[in-house]
């Protein structure tokens, strides 16, 4: 089948490409770029993307798909639908499933199950067996089966000695170790430690719980000369530690979630469990530092930390409720609203953080927009104003603090693996 994408502003930072072009796509491959007349190309379906932008497919490097184990909360299929609706053509899924992704069988199971879907799913495998932090997982075997990074996400690798071996071992494959940075002896709480936790009398987690582990991990990466990726950073201290480490040439990269650059612990005053996450929402000064870090490149990418939870689990007494929120379908809208429209990042920088950098970190090929390339694109309307409605999410779970929030900017369509997601439908192309 032939399709023509007309009049979109095509941007790809790695190709230094930014111009209004038409794309002719045939059997999933870009055949022609430039001005294309539908009169010349017969039997083609036309999509007019006037005033929209067309970029290399977005990639979310931190999602929890819950399969296997908690298919009531999300599955590989529903998570992929959520990703497609949110503008992503690829995701990396975290290993804290049940069982954990710590065997080649489970890596293969996920690869196999996601094969037919538009969205590419790349498993991040457990760094240690059962994510217990005691013994190395079969890293080589997992890598060979298709794991693209290693992490005990949900938990930190507590023991520096084990972390050392994980870093050394993964270095053989040049893959990053992704760390959930939190010193567990300091993180026995339900929210950020600050004035708000004092007023609410809530058990709290100080910034230093994160800073300590970020500092330790940077030192360990420096010591082993291996790659460390800091997941969902939330503190100004972590931003500064990473900035300094990068200056020294340490192989450290970092991501931030939309909620950590938009919401503060002030939102917890209503005790809504949709504001409960790990790491917790911090303060305005942390957000300021994170925005600076996004601007100067200290923070490489934006990831959702999409964490679906069943209603009955979130509708619980605050301290007992699980951490995390769904994010695949709000990440792009929040990022455009809060970063591009507020002039923190340029559109090019945002695309780097949502498409280029995560793939670079994970050693994945970056989609090119040129004749002969396989198509992997996201079409975005940066000016579309819409309201988040959790009841309409494609994700199986509805736990979002952004319900009813007005956003500017949304994905209109994604194209990958000879499928196009447009107006709530998958079209074979």
């Amino acid at each position: 089948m032939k399709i023509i994408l007309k009049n979109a502003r095509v941007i790809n930072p790695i190709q230094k490409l930014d111009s209004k072009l038409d794309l002719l796509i045939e059997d999933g491959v870009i055949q022609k770029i430039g001005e294309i007349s539908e009169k010349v190309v017969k039997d083609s379906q036309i999509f007019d993307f006037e005033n929209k932008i067309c970029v290399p497919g977005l990639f979310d490097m931190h999602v929890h798909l819950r399969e296997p184990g908690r298919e009531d909360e999300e599955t590989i299929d529903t998570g992929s639908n959520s990703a497609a609706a949110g503008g992503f053509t690829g995701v990396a899924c975290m290993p804290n499933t049940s069982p954990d992704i710590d065997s080649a069988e489970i890596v293969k199971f996920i690869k196999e199950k996601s094969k037919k879907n538009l969205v590419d799913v790349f498993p991040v495998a457990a760094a240690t067996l059962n994510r217990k932090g005691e013994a190395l997982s079969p890293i080589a075997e997992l890598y060979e089966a298709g794991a693209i990074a290693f992490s005990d996400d949900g938990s930190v690798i507590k023991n520096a000695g084990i972390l050392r071996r994980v870093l050394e071992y993964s270095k053989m494959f040049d893959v990053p170790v992704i760390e959930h940075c939190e010193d567990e002896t300091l993180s026995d709480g339900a929210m950020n430690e600050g004035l708000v936790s004092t007023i609410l009398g809530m058990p709290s987690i100080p910034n230093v719980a994160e800073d300590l582990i970020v500092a330790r991990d940077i030192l360990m990466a420096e010591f082993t000369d291996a790659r460390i990726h800091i997941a969902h950073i939330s503190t100004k201290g972590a931003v500064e530690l990473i900035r300094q480490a990068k200056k020294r040439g340490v192989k450290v990269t970092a991501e931030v979630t939309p909620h950590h650059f938009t919401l503060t612990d002030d939102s917890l005053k209503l005790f809504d469990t949709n504001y409960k996450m790990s790491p917790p929402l911090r303060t305005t000064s942390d957000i300021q530092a994170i925005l600076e870090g996004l601007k100067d490149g200290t923070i490489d990418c934006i990831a959702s930390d999409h964490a679906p939870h069943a209603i009955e689990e979130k509708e619980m007494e605050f301290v007992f409720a699980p951490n995390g929120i769904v994010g695949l379908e709000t990440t792009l809208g929040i990022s455009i609203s809060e970063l591009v429209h507020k002039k923190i990042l340029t559109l090019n920088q945002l695309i780097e953080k949502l498409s280029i950098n995560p793939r670079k970190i994970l050693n994945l090929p970056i989609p090119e927009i040129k004749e002969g390339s396989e198509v992997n694109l996201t079409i975005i309307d940066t000016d579309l104003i819409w309201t988040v409605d959790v009841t309409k999410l494609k994700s199986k779970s509805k736990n979002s603090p952004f319900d009813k929030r007005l956003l500017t900017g949304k994905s209109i369509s994604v194209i990958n693996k000879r499928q196009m997601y447009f107006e709530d439908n998958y079209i074979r192309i």
Partner: protein
Amino acid sequence: MSLSSRHLLGLYGVPKEDIQLILDTATTFREVLERPIKKVPTLQGKTIVNLFYESSTRTRISFELAQKRLSADTINFSTSTSSTKKGETFKDTVRNIEAMKVDMIVVRHQSAGVPTYLTKISKANIINAGDGLHEHPTQGLLDIYSIKEKLGKLDGLKVCIVGDVSHSRVALSNIFGLKTMGAKVSVCGPSTMIPFGIESLGVKVYNKINQAIAEHDVLNVLRIQLERNAGERIPSLREYHNYFGITTERIEKNNRDVLILHPGPINRGVELSSEVADGPYQVILDQVTNGVAIRMAVLYLLGTMH
């Protein structure tokens, strides 16, 4: 005259007029409690559930007695298991209770914020009887009432809350309520027991008990949670008593006019010496009586709101 909210979730942000109204109403009920027949028909026909997820005999009895004095129908629901351990969720339990047509829910829970959550899932008036380490507003009110009763005023009074402030809902309710009523509030305790940023609430921090006694009109002495603290926030109960315990000797040396409050139950020989606990400076049992009057006032004001 009526309150500005149909729930009592805490004293944070409660306007002065509301606190004053509760104190005044409590004075009326305090008189009722002195009568031979201590009962008024004010809440006849109203159904109140005491939903206690954390055992607290004292607070529950005080509420129950207040409800009986007001002629309300009372149901007690007590459990120590949280919804994480049971099959039924907290929400289901509340929905079930709600279906029995209750007018008010008095709730005690180990998790901060549960009363606030209840207002979203129930139509009843909600009264917080202590949620986690957040607030215990009726305790705050009865403390404020007792101070006013003994010293005749609140405005400009210097009140110090002594002990494990970071593990105390009583401390927070006192701080919020007393400040609204014009008192100057400070805290005194080991640094490990003083919560983050308390100074930015306008609360002065003391680490020396003698100085705290000397510089205040009232000491509200908190109970040290034995199970929670020894070894973690303080080296030992003995060391706590030696450095922060209130003794007759310390009072007489520093300030013979000081008034001692304690929310009970007392750990004798830890936060208070036995001599102080039974001595002339304290009003601990008056607090208990005032507690019933305050709870009657709150139940009455919320229960008769339209």
